[in-house]
């Protein structure tokens, strides 16, 4: 777009966003960013602004919005405290590789470094937690800076970027000519797949008897879910997912064998150490997945594929590291492969699955006595929603239960804080997911602790009448920490027992419908009431206070030492 009439930098920011097909921004105004908001006043028809109640909420919401829509999220904050409030959200997006463009205002360039009112060095502060950042001090730099921001955020391994824009650059005049970036010489986002690697990969698969495919978040980020399904259906190789890889393949696929990691399923963890071939697709071998690295998958040859070269051989040394876009890899190997995994290998998974079903899942999801358990709430919702909902979790026991017991079907239907484990992520993320998918049922699973960290966003949910279904699994504890205290600190519950407010009453204060359920016989009806309610709804479920998440790989254990129950 070419426009020779001069406009302000603030307007140029908004025009650039429109050029990148942005129609939703999460943010919060303040002194230094006022010129942008003044221009936004005239553009609210094209750019919908969601006014959050705290900048951290905007950051998490923008991330969740990006995850459910596949478009980059955009977030505005003013200088100083507005910008620093974003840091947790930026870090979260960085660890989970989500494209979000953070635009922060800055004091005038003449005041930089003078400790001016609401001045913070956001470039230095955000450097370790962004994929790229840049400070704009002149209006004419804005189009190019934003074009680069979108390019870096969305290509290669995606991630958050931050553009810090001084007040004088927002006020200054510039001609506006926007050109999207196609390439930057110092940055190579599209690795070229080496055809020999595919050949070697085929050889390794063809000679394997116990292959196991580990599917990570990279599958979802590469939009390669169809390819994954086709590959698995053609080869019958058992496929396990990481926490962020959940929803990369439908959980009723006959070759799906569950979730990896500390609170993952019994079978894939145990059999990781029996496999003779591990095909790791878009995973980064996080310590929560591998357990004791020195005893991880020692019987297997390892093929590791990632778009980020720095991930290859970072945590686990692979026999065949492949630097590739996973979609390209699958497109290449699917027509060429002619392999069928031995039937008895998959049966080994099914045997172990039965044990987990008996010892853990049955008790968690179908208890007949005692208090309500998280698993049964989630399992019921999985059934009632026909596995069609978008699930958002906070962090801790609620998160592990949500991931374990909702039977995911469609891509990008689990939004959770993986790498950073950010308590307080849930409510604002649920809000962002609902903004991104207004027609979908969005269900939040939160604990009582995490909910209180960002509960101010009830105000945003009320303001925009976002029909988020909020389920607070209340055990009056910081449950996951309490579980560790029970298991490893001899039941010394230091500062994890927490009295909670009357959550339904809190919701009512924001004009949100709500109720509380504590008895099993009333649970089914309470969930129906919540699901059929048209607007936002908060349901507090009083659950078993000292329930634990099992199975569990204790710290320092190998994956095959995973513990099924607490003795």
């Amino acid at each position, binding site marked *: 777009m070419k426009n020779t009439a001069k406009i302000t930098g603030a307007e140029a920011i908004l025009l650039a966003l429109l050029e990148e097909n942005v129609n939703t921004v999460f943010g919060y105004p303040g002194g230094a960013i006022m010129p942008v908001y003044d221009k936004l006043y005239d553009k609210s028809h094209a750019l919908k602004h969601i006014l959050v109640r705290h900048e951290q909420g905007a950051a998490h919401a923008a991330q969740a919005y990006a995850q459910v829509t596949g478009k980059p999220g955009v977030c505005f904050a003013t200088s100083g405290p507005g910008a620093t409030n974003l840091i947790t959200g930026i870090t979260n997006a960085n660890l989970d590789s989500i494209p979000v463009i953070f635009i922060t205002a800055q004091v005038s360039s003449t005041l930089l470094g003078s400790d001016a009112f609401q001045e913070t060095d956001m*470039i*230095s502060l955000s*450097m*370790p937690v962004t*994929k*790229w*950042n840049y*400070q704009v001090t002149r209006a004419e730099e804005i189009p190019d800076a934003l*074009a680069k921001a979108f390019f*870096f955020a969305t290509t290669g391994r995606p991630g958050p970027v931050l553009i810090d824009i001084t007040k004088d650059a927002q006020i200054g005049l510039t001609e506006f000519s926007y*050109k*999207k*970036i*196609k*390439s*930057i*010489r*110092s*940055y190579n986002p599209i690795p070229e797949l080496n055809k020999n690697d595919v050949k070697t990969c085929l050889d390794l698969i063809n000679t394997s008897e116990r292959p196991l495919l580990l599917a990570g978040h990279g599958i979802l980020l590469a939009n390669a879910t169809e390819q994954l399904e086709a590959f698995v259906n053609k080869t019958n190789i058992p496929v396990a997912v990481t926490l962020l890889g959940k929803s990369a393949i439908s959980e009723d696929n006959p070759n799906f064998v569950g979730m990896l990691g500390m609170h993952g399923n019994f079978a894939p963890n145990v059999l990781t150490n029996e496999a003779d071939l591990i095909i790791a697709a878009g995973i980064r071998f996080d310590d929560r997945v591998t357990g004791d690295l020195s005893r991880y998958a020692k019987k297997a040859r390892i093929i590791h594929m990632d778009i*980020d*070269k*720095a991930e290859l*051989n*970072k945590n686990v040394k692979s026999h065949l590291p492949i630097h590739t876009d996973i979609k390209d890899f699958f497109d290449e190997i699917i027509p060429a492969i002619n392999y069928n995994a031995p039937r008895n290998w998959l049966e080994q998974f099914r045997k172990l699955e039965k044990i987990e079903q008996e010892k853990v899942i049955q008790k968690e999801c179908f208890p007949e006595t005692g208090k309500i358990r998280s698993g049964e709430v989630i399992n019921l919702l999985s059934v009632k929603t026909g596995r069609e909902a978008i699930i958002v979790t906070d962090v801790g026991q609620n998160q592990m239960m949500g991931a374990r017991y909702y039977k995911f079907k469609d891509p990008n239907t689990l939004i959770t804080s993986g790498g950073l484990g950010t308590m307080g992520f849930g409510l604002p993320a649920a809000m962002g997911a609902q903004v991104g998918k207004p027609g979908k049922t969005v269900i939040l699973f939160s604990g009582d602790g995490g909910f209180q960290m960002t509960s101010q966003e009830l105000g945003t949910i009320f303001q925009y009448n976002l029909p988020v279904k909020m389920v607070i699994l209340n055990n009056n504890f910081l449950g996951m920490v309490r579980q560790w205290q029970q298991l490893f600190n001899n039941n010394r519950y230091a500062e994890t027992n927490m009295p909670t407010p009357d959550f339904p009453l809190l919701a009512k204060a924001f004009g949100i419908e709500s109720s509380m359920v504590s008895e099993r016989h009333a649970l089914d009806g309470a969930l129906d009431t919540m699901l059929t309610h048209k607007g936002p709804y908060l349901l507090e479920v009083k659950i078993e206070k000292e329930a634990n998440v099992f199975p569990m790989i204790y710290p320092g254990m190998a994956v095959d030492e995973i513990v099924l129950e607490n003795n």
Partner: protein
Amino acid sequence: MKETYTITAFSENHIGLLNRITIIFTRRHINIESLTVSSTEMKGIHRFTIVVEEEEKQVIKVVNQIEKLTEVLRAEYYLNDEIVYREIALYKIPIDTAINKNIEQILREFNAHMVDIQDVYVIIENTGHIDDTEKLYEMLKPYGILQFVRSGRISISKQKKELVNYLKELPINEYVKE
């Protein structure tokens, strides 16, 4: 086993890149022994030369993280025998001891030379390896060293393929055509 590694990185000449690169070391608790940043013969491209004492597997990870930065074109690492490397040192000596007859012999031995002579002091410059700098320091010590300074390492790799030829072919930015 920890060894001396020289890491070189070629980057765009943008504000903050030094910080971007050094935090990669900080985060992994790696001390930088020496750091030199300078422009190259390619306009807009700067070269970082960083010396660390580390294990190779850790150095590989650091180099990958440096190369991952969106504004870094290339990063590599070398052992001492794979490069030709130098540092420069300056020594400021009082004139009255410097005119002692022995100093001429020392300068000749090191191939060092005087770069400035004033009424009260002389400045001696020497180029060499760390050991040379330190050995000369010890030998000049009896003369009374008023000031001493040394640079970080600069190095040139012995490999045959030259990076600049590859860089020359790349346009800085390309835009999507309307």
